């Protein structure tokens, strides 16, 4: 694992243009403000962490980026294009993939089928060939199976290919979910607490996958995580939310020393 704060200089060079920018976004449900006036950006190739205490609006932020919620105010620009009424499947077309805080796998399907489902967008054999399972349909099926097997190898889940995911232990489910997101070959991958409920060893594995994926596939990652050690180790830049407001933004080192962040986590007498 990368030494804390040691290699940011090198990583900054990798990170390039702005991939996604969030400008002055506000979102509320009824009277409750989940996010208000938040702005930040994500650069191509970086690992961007979003942290904050419970209820800070982190997951809501991801849901806005995804298109599940539409902000009442502000805008999201992805690859230089603002899409105000973007739906989740538009986000998928654009190259945004996502994992969930509570694993959202297709429970009735095998691990293999789950990851194959991640390839849906890349497959286009028409209904006729699908009916016959022949010609283009079969070719496509085999071709994508190759890709999926690469991901299965990468995540070391060969043994559980045929197991219905509902029967897998939690740690493996998280891994399959990551595989499904990877199968989409996304440009931006949103990870919502990828290590929640894992033990140390599993966390180390998962961190390794995230870093490797970022290195090999060049996937830009935005992740929410509560484990500060992991966040500081993995990420290039961190944005901190509290009560729906951005209170800090910067490199892990900057964040560590930030008084507002320390207050938010430890609590101050108001």
């Amino acid at each position: 694992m990368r030494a804390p704060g040691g290699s940011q200089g090198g990583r900054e060079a990798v990170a390039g243009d702005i991939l996604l920018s969030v400008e002055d976004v506000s979102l509320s449900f009824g009277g409750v403000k989940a996010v208000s006036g938040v702005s930040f950006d994500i650069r191509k190739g970086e690992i961007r962490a979003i942290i904050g205490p419970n209820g800070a609006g982190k997951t809501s932020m991801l849901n806005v980026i995804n298109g599940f919620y539409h902000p009442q105010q502000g805008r999201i620009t992805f690859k230089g294009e603002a899409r105000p009424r973007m739906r989740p499947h538009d986000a998928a077309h654009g190259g945004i993939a996502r994992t969930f805080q509570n694993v959202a796998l297709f429970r009735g399907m095998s691990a293999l089928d789950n990851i194959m489902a991640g390839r849906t967008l890349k497959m286009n054999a028409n209904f006729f060939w699908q009916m016959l399972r022949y010609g283009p349909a079969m070719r496509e099926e085999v071709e994508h199976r190759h890709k999926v097997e690469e991901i299965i190898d990468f995540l070391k889940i060969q043994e559980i290919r045929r197991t219905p995911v509902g029967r897998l232990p939690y740690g493996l489910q998280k891994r399959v979910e990551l595989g499904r997101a990877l199968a989409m070959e996304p440009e931006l991958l949103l990870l919502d607490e990828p290590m929640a409920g894992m033990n140390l060893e599993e966390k180390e594995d998962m961190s390794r996958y995230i870093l490797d994926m970022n290195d090999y596939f060049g996937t830009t990652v935005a992740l929410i995580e509560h484990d500060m050690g992991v966040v500081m180790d993995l990420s290039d830049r961190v944005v901190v939310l509290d009560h729906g407001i951005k209170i800090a933004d910067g490199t892990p080192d900057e964040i560590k020393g930030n008084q507002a962040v320390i207050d938010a986590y430890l609590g101050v007498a108001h």
Partner: protein
Amino acid sequence: MDILYSIFIDPFAQMIGAPDLLVQTLWDGLVGGMLYALIALGFVLIFKASGVFNFAQGIMVVFAGLTLVGLYEAGVPAFIALALAIAVMYGLAFAVERVVLRPLVNQPDIILFMATFGITYFLIGFGEFVFGGDPKVMITDDLYLPKGSFNVKMLGGIVNFQRLDIVAVVVASIMVAALAVFFSKTRIGRALRAVADSHSAALSVGISLEQIWVIVWFAAGLVALVTGIFWGARSNVSFALEVIALKALPVLILGGFTSIPGAIVGGLIIGVGEKLAEFYWGPLVGGGTDAWFAYVIALVFLLFRPQGLFGEKIIERV
């Protein structure tokens, strides 16, 4: 133009031209709607307390009525038969909790929903097996229910009221009021509402789910018995009523699944609506529209206001 005239103008002209007929239609619709509302009420009771969408409620109505009449025909005096029928409904509630609900606790809603299809079929088979499949006549006389009708002169015509219908309206109102008091004032009622909010939270403060479920299913069974008596008195007691009992489903969509006032208002709207539609617009399409009118209304509602008239807006969390 003829068609537009007969859709948009003629029916209203008829309404104004013969207001007595309009009142008669409205009254018939209200009484019919009240019976739908009573079935829907049983649904709501169970749904509120256990989150189970009880498809068998309509069948419970017929089953309760059939038990009452069947026991009477077997020589049991009317009021003892009534007491026994109540006991049978308690037994049913107990059995359902033991055999169906308890093993299926924590299953997805849709599984429980389908399990109530099983209850429906079992009750149909069991009821007919024990009491025979022929339609039966409700024992109105022995239960001292009034019969016959009287006419009231109004609006330049005569409107006919069945005495039975008036008693039905009164009894239904008393029952709804009693349930409302039960829910808001008694200890069990408060526990019921707690269970409705969260099963696990209710468990953690020491409310026995099993007991609550038996109570709500029994309450729904009682509502079913009352409904069965009045409905049976209007037509016959037989499982052919099953199809009519399904009308309570669109009522629920209108009223919302958790609202008792919703069930009542929804029932009345559906009852009046389908009578008016059938009487004034039905002839244009050949009649029989009351077979589907309620469902189409529900469908329109589902598209524009899925939470019903009184339901709370459902916010889906991601």
